[in-house]
């Protein structure tokens, strides 16, 4: 099974190529090409995963080219971490393909959409399979391209176009960091191979300052892809893309690539205490920062987007707090419940044709399947006991506490409270109460859309039992087979942590219930009591405006200066030379007046000067 794992990314690539050929086709049967081929990838991935679960692993490499003594290799590698990622990516990709068949029904560029999905899946699976940083970087950029194409799929909408550009530019800022880190590692180690990098980290071949620097540079790449502070602004805007895309790329896979990168390079981070602290702080601050913005957004997808940013912050926090397993665990569960939430949100949008939650309401009775599934997702992300989110979030909190980062621990608890609050604000506003908009033609989505949601709903409940203190720590044992040395000792902090976490989430749900369902508390009491703060939060902490005022305006100012320099200094120099030559030629041509006497005068002057020179120097120019 493992020898054939290189086929996994090739199926979506084949789908991409085939669908490009059939891109003019009007038939919506073309979707089955994509569904079928990603289904094959999924089957193969599960086979690989089972093999790895039994303790197998493989690494196949061939020399790509050589620079002097150093060989640059290409190949594929299967270890516990990336086998798990393979399953997550191919599963979500398969389900999203299926779902899109219903969601994109009637779109003019139907096959093109599936072609892009195939390209993205290819890139993401290739990224996960890469055994070295260079190969990872190539797929990393391909993933960015896939994301760009899919966000800008509705290219005739100016917002979508702007969002696609923004996503590309913002992630590119991170990519530069990753590239610098990669080059620094190559300089230090002489190889892009993970194994060799880790070996020299273990042997202490790299100075500690350089370790921290490279780890931080690589983390900058992760910040860009995973939408962490301060490069998070592209992710909410990316919601301009079709909703299945948001579920696939901006919830489950691409944004998780940053977390995956940190996890894959974890031995490097482990070697530097500073790097881990930075990762933890960025993650923790992002978690609460994005959660606070999610409290007040009015667009259903944007709430989910900020929630994604916040949850990715959780994963980073876990990784930074030495909670390797907790981070991966949350990545897995989050992929399922967030994809579920996005698909459910897509189903709602499909039904009511608006994204503004103020225009929804009372949909519970109309969407008999979507409603409960959304509720499952919301319960899971809020960390209600017995659902997947509870276990993974609990583990993150425990490892943060065990790592002695108490400040970040309480930050994460508050973020958990906020998460529960905004998720149920969303739930109550969308599904309960009275309809606040025209809901005449509302009906449940077709089964091709509800089926993937059902699968994800089941997974959102049971995925948490992969790693629990009660039934067994399967995931921990599984990941222990990987290249990362897990810190032994208990990550299970004091027993009051699950209680605090549960209390925080129930409190959030209860508050949302009181405000948005019962109406006991006025919806505006926070807004009224703290107008300044709520205004800042409503405007997303003015981050976009801040970037606009500093970087965008700064760049524009600089370019204006450049224009002035070009216009007056460069062009001015040229103009000066031109007018100088022209003036000289005018003087010259005015001497040529055609009169012999003038010529004669100059000839005489010439002779006089020559004679003077001869007379003064006493010879011919000696």
């Amino acid at each position, binding site marked *: 099974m493992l020898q054939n794992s290189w086929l996994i990314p090739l199926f979506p690539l084949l789908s991409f190529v085939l669908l490009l050929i059939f891109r003019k086709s009007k038939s919506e049967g073309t979707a089955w090409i994509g569904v079928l081929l990603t289904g094959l990838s999924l089957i193969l991935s599960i086979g690989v995963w089972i093999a790895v679960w039994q303790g197998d692993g493989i690494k196949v490499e061939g020399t790509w080219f050589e620079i002097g003594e150093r060989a640059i290799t290409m190949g594929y590698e299967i270890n516990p971490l990336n086998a798990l990622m393979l399953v997550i990516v191919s599963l979500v990709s398969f389900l999203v393909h299926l779902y899109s068949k219903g969601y994109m029904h009637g779109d003019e560029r139907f096959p093109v959409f599936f072609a892009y999905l195939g390209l993205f899946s290819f890139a993401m699976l290739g990224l996960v399979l890469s055994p070295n940083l260079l190969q990872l970087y190539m797929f990393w950029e391909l993933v960015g391209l896939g994301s760009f194409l899919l966000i800008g799929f509705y290219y005739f909408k100016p917002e979508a176009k702007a969002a696609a550009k923004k996503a590309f530019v913002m992630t590119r800022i991170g990519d530069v960091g990753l590239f610098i880190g990669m080059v620094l590692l190559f300089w230090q180690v002489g190889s892009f191979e993970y194994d060799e990098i880790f070996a020299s980290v273990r042997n202490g071949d790299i100075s500690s300052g350089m370790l921290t620097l490279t780890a931080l540079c690589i983390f900058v790449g992760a910040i860009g892809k995973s939408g962490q502070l301060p490069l998070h602004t592209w992710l909410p805007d990316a919601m301009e893309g079709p909703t299945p895309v948001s579920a696939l790329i901006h919830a489950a896979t691409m944004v998780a690539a940053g977390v995956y990168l940190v996890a894959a390079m974890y031995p490097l981070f482990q070697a530097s205490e500073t790097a881990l602290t930075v990762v933890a702080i960025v993650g923790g601050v992002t978690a609460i920062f994005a959660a606070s913005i999610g409290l007040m957004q009015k667009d259903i997808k944007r709430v989910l987007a900020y929630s994604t940013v916040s949850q990715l912050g959780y994963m980073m926090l876990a990784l930074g707090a030495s909670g390797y397993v907790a981070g991966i665990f949350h990545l897995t569960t989050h992929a399922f419940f967030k994809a579920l939430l996005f698909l459910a949100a897509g189903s709602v949008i499909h039904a009511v044709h608006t994204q503004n939650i103020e225009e929804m309401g009372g949909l519970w009775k109309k969407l008999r399947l979507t409603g409960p599934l959304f509720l499952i997702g919301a319960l899971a992300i809020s960390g209600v006991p017995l659902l997947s989110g509870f276990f993974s979030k609990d583990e993150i909190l425990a490892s943060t506490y065990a790592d002695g980062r108490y400040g970040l621990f309480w930050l994460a608890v508050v973020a958990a409270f906020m998460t529960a609050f905004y998720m149920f604000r969303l739930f109550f506003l969308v599904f309960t109460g009275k309809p606040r908009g025209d809901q005449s033609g509302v009906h449940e989505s077709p089964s091709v859309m509800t089926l993937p949601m059902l699968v994800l709903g089941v997974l959102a409940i049971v995925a948490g039992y992969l790693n629990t203190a009660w039934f067994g720590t399967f995931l921990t044992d599984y990941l222990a087979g990987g290249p990362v040395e897990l810190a032994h000792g208990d990550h299970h902090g004091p027993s009051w942590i699950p209680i605090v976490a549960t209390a925080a989430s129930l409190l959030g749900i209860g508050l949302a219930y009181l405000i948005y369902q019962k109406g006991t508390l006025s919806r505006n009491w926070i807004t009224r009591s703290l107008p300044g703060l709520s205004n800042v939060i409503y405007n997303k902490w003015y981050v976009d405006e801040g970037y606009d005022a500093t970087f965008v305006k700064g760049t524009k100012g600089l370019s204006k200066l450049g224009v002035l320099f070009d216009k007056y200094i460069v062009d001015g120099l040229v103009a000066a030379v031109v007018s100088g030559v022209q003036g000289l030629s005018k003087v010259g041509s005015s001497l*040529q*007046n*055609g*009169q*012999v*006497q003038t010529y*004669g005068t100059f000839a005489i002057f010439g002779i006089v000067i020559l004679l003077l020179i001869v007379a003064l120097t006493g010879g011919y120019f000696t």
Partner: protein
Amino acid sequence: MSSIPLAAYLLLALILFCIGLFGALTKRNAVIVLISIELMLNAVNINLVAFAKYSINPGLTGQIFSLFTITVAAAEAAVGLAILIALYRNRQTVNVDEMDSMKR
């Protein structure tokens, strides 16, 4: 012989040449320009004769040479005047300023 030194002859030739040059370059009337050129030629003749008499080995070569120069100058003046008349017939003027056809 006389006690007039060589320098006096040369000075006279110099003055004559400069007057001729000045006339040739500044006068507007073409006839006067021709006359000025004759003056310059004659300044040269004075030099030739003076050196023939006062040089380290005196002889007749310089004097004979000046005879030739006078002859050539006469021929040249004849040709010059002929051109001038032809020009006058064409353009009805002897003003040098108006003769700028070299520029066109």
